[in-house]
Structures are given as C-alpha cells and as structure tokens.
C-alpha cells in the first residue's frame, strides 16, 4: 500500500491547527465554526499555505461532513418535542420566518441574484445555528432560565422548516424546466412526509434495522444505509444532505440516542472538514467587495432575530431581562447557513464569500452579545457558579 506522506502531513497539520483554534474559541465560549472557515480561507489557492495533497481529501470529506451534519440533525429530531413546540410557538415561527428570511431575500434581489440565489440567501439569513446556540446556553448555564424553552422551541421549528426547505432548494438548484422542478419539489416533499410518517408509525422497526448492541456494528450499519440513501437522493437531484436527514428522521427513540452518540466524533471531524472546505472554496480576493453587504446584512438580521427572540419569549410570559436574553441568543448563524451555500454555491459565485463573511460575523457576534445581555451574574464571565444574593 502506498502511503502519501504529504497527505498525512498536511492533514495532520490542518487538524492540529483546528484543535488549537477550536480550544481558543471554546475558552471564550465562542463557536469554532468561524475559525474553521478562516483556516480554510488561509489554505485556499493563491494563499501562502497551499495544501495540494490534502485538497482532494478535504473535498471528499466535505461531502461526508454535510451528510453527517444532516444525519445528526435528523437523529436529534423528535416528533414529541416538535408537536410540543408547535402547540405554543407557531406564531413565533411565523414571525421568525418573515422577519429573518425577507431581509436575505431583499439583499439577494438587490445583488441581482436569480430566484434560486434569492431563495438560498433568504434561507441562510433565516436559520439560526441550533448547534452554536444550544451549546452556548449550556456553557453560559442558561438552560434552566425561563426564556430557554422559547429559544429552543424556535430552533426546533426552524430545523423542521429546513426539512421542507432543503429538498426544495436542492431540486431548484439542479435546474431543468419549471415542470421538472415542480415535480422534483413534490417528490422531495413527499419523501419528507413519508419519512415523518415512517418515523412516527414504524420508527422502532427502522430502528431495528440499524440497532445492534455493538457500537461498531451500529455505526457501520447506520453509515452504510445513510450513504446509500444519500447517494440515491443525489442521483435524483434531491441532494445527499436531504437523504441523510431523512434517514436520521426515521431512526427514533433509544436507537437514535445511541446512534447520535456513536457518530458524534465522526460528525465533528467531518463537519470541521466541511467548514474548512467551504473556506477553501472562497478566494480571499473575493471577500473585500462583499464585506459591506455581509456586514449590513448581519446588522439587519441580527436585529430581526432579537425581535424574534423577544417575541417568542414574551409568549411564555417572562420578564424584560429574559426577553432580552432570548433575543440575543438567537442571533448566531452557523452550520446550516453554510450547508445552504454548499448546496447553492455552484451557480452563484457571490454566495459563498458573502455567506461565509456573514456567518463569520454573526457566529462571533451572536455568542458575545448573548453573553453580555440581560444577566446580573457578573462572574458568569468566568464560567463559574454563583449564589443568589439573599
């Protein structure tokens, strides 16, 4: 067997760099995603640090990363939590969609994108990062706060909206005549509905297909099925990501919990590779022209998320400070904005640098603003516990 020393070396150095950057970000309770993007950007063509040998692996790894991200999202999804969120927060979800998708759509229109580009940008500004936010609330010890159920409900409903949005986007991206696209959209939505019905009625049977007491078996079965379904989905132009999400949805209960734990570290590795690859696909020279637009979009949609969060929290009847905290918490955008770009970037060269810069700003600003908003716990900055003053 031929071992490519260059590949191993480059890959190893990239992972070491990512771990150092990630540790730095975690220390500051920030998300490592923007730093991963930056790493990719620094390694891109024409930069001082080219990675010719690892490039191929990063490209392959990125497509596995996007599949694993969506698989994990599907696994975490629970019908019970979804219906509970629906019962209370449908108006919040509507406010969320209108306030946050519209600015992206308007920006796309002003930038002269076509319909698909407008739809992609609207999605990228709409979807908050459930990964960043759920982790942030845990790190800041805010899960027990009264505004947290509202924040988490909004995130669950957004994830659900993604289930309908991603297949539609994927089909539209693949082009064709309007009736082909229309048919594709119907098929894609049908598949999503079928997956929900399956997971609801026969979830434990599907679970039995992958379930196995041995973790290694569980991982191999799950990955095997997921990649096959992802490939089939890609083949019918419905995007591999959507196929993986559907597999995640149909596995439920304890099997889903164990499966989530088994693939967690794989997902972290390949998701990091995916973020690096997106950074890599952006030419550093393309960034300066889109920065003003990205910054403006970040400010506007940051503000609209604050309004969304405040509104959702007010439906749970919490006080002013809790509403402010909920608003700030939702600002962060992250992995799914990048996933959307991953789907739609091909025909729209301006999207990748624009959204990468946009996510970069909000993935850093969101957690920072959240941290300093509406809390009396000054020592929360040190991450330590505190006592109430009584």
């Amino acid at each position, binding site marked *: 067997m031929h071992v490519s020393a260059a590949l191993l070396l480059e890959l190893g150095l990239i992972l070491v760099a990512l771990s150092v950057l990630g540790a730095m970000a975690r220390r500051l309770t920030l998300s490592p995603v923007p730093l991963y993007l930056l790493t990719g950007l620094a390694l891109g063509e024409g930069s001082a640090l080219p990675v010719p040998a690892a490039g191929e692996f990063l490209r392959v790894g990125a497509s596995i990363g996007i599949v694993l991200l969506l698989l994990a999202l599907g696994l*975490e999804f*629970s019908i019970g*939590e*979804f219906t*509970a*969120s629906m019962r209370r927060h449908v108006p919040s979800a509507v406010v969320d969609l209108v306030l946050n998708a519209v600015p992206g759509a308007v920006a796309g229109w002003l930038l002269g994108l076509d319909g698909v580009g407008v739809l992609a940008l609207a999605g990228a500004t709409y979807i908050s990062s*459930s990964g960043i936010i*759920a982790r942030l*609330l*845990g790190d800041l*010890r*805010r*899960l*027990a*706060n*009264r*505004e*947290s*159920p509202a924040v*988490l*409900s909004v*995130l*669950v409903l957004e994830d659900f909206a993604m289930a309908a949005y991603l297949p539609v986007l994927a089909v539209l991206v693949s082009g064709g005549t309007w009736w082909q696209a229309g048919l594709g959209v119907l098929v894609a939505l049908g598949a999503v509905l079928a997956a929900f019905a399956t997971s609801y009625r026969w979830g*434990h049977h599907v679970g039995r297909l992958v379930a196995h007491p041995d973790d290694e078996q569980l991982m191999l079965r799950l990955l095997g099925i997921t990649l096959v379904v992802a490939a089939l989905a890609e083949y019918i132009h419905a995007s591999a990501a959507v196929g993986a999400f559907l597999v995640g949805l149909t596995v439920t*209960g*304890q099997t889903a*919990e164990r499966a989530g734990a088994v693939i967690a570290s794989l997902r972290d590795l390949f998701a990091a590779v995916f973020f690096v690859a997106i950074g890599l696909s952006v030419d550093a020279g393309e960034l300066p022209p889109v920065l003003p637009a990205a910054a403006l979009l970040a400010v506007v949609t940051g503000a609209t998320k604050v309004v969304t969060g405040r509104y959702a929290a007010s439906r749970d009847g*919490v*006080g002013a*400070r*809790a509403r402010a*905290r909920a608003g700030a918490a939702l600002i962060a955008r992250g992995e799914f904005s990048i996933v959307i770009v991953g789907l739609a970037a091909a025909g729209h060269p301006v999207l990748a640098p624009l959204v990468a810069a946009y996510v970069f700003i909000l993935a850093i600003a969101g957690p920072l603003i959240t941290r300093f908003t*509406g*809390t*009396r*716990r000054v020592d929360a900055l040190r991450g330590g*516990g*505190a*006592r*109430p*003053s*009584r």
Partner: protein
Amino acid sequence: MDVSEVLLPGVGLRYEFTNHEGHLIGVVARRTGDFEVVVYGDDDSDEAWPVFRLNEEEAETLAQILGAPRIAERFADLTREVPGLESGRVELPAGSVYADRPLGHTRARTRTGASVVAIVRGEEVIASPGPQEVLRAGDVLVVIGTDRGITDVVRLLRG
C-alpha cells in the same frame, strides 16, 4: 409535593419545585444524562443561578445518598419502548401476610402476569431478586407489567 416539568426541546427536561424554605429549585435533566441543579432568585425568577452540575454517575450517587432510588425511572425508559408495558413501585404494607416470607410465596408472576424486577429496602437495592428472597414490611417492590397486573400486585400484597 408539586414538581412541575418543562420540556427543553433538543436538550431534555427541566423540573422545578419549591422547598419548605420557599426556595424555588430547578433541575435540568439533559438527554446526555448530565444534570444541572439551579435555584431561582427572589427578585427575578426568570434567571437561574447555577449551583452545580452532575454527570450521570454523580447524579446516581447523589440520588442514592438522598435515599430515593432511581431504579424505577430506569425501568420507565424500558416501558416507554413497549406499548402497554408499565412500571410501578409497590410498598409491602406492615400487616401483609407476605412480610418475612420469600418472594416466591406471593406467586405474583403466575397470578398477575407482572414481574418483580427489584426490591428497594432502605438504601439497598436488590436487583432481579430470586424467589427465595425474603420480603420485609416496608420493602418497595419495583414491578413491571400491564397496568392491570400492577394493580393486581398491589391488591395481592395487601392480603
């Protein structure tokens, strides 16, 4: 005592109750098995003050120290998987004829279809007890079966 339960979508559950001193206490049970214990302030009860966090093992230990064996909860997970299967905790009353007699004498499995999967005695838990296990008054039997079966066990032990 009233314990209210709030769903934290994607994260787990939050339980809260007020103790006898009037402190509002919250416990976040995460899907990962970790727990976070908080108290809420008097002036602004929206913001929780973190007290401490526990991993699964530490929570288990604390629960045992507090004398509330969580074994029934663990079976509750199992019963959720199988429709119609329930778990219950049945105390052996002081005057029961089965006090100080072996578990086998109750013939609970044959007569009710429900199984005794554990006996909780004070701070001790006897997991999957054999028929020769002698029951004591005050033992809490963890029973798995249908709703009907569990009711029958309660009636049986009373006799």
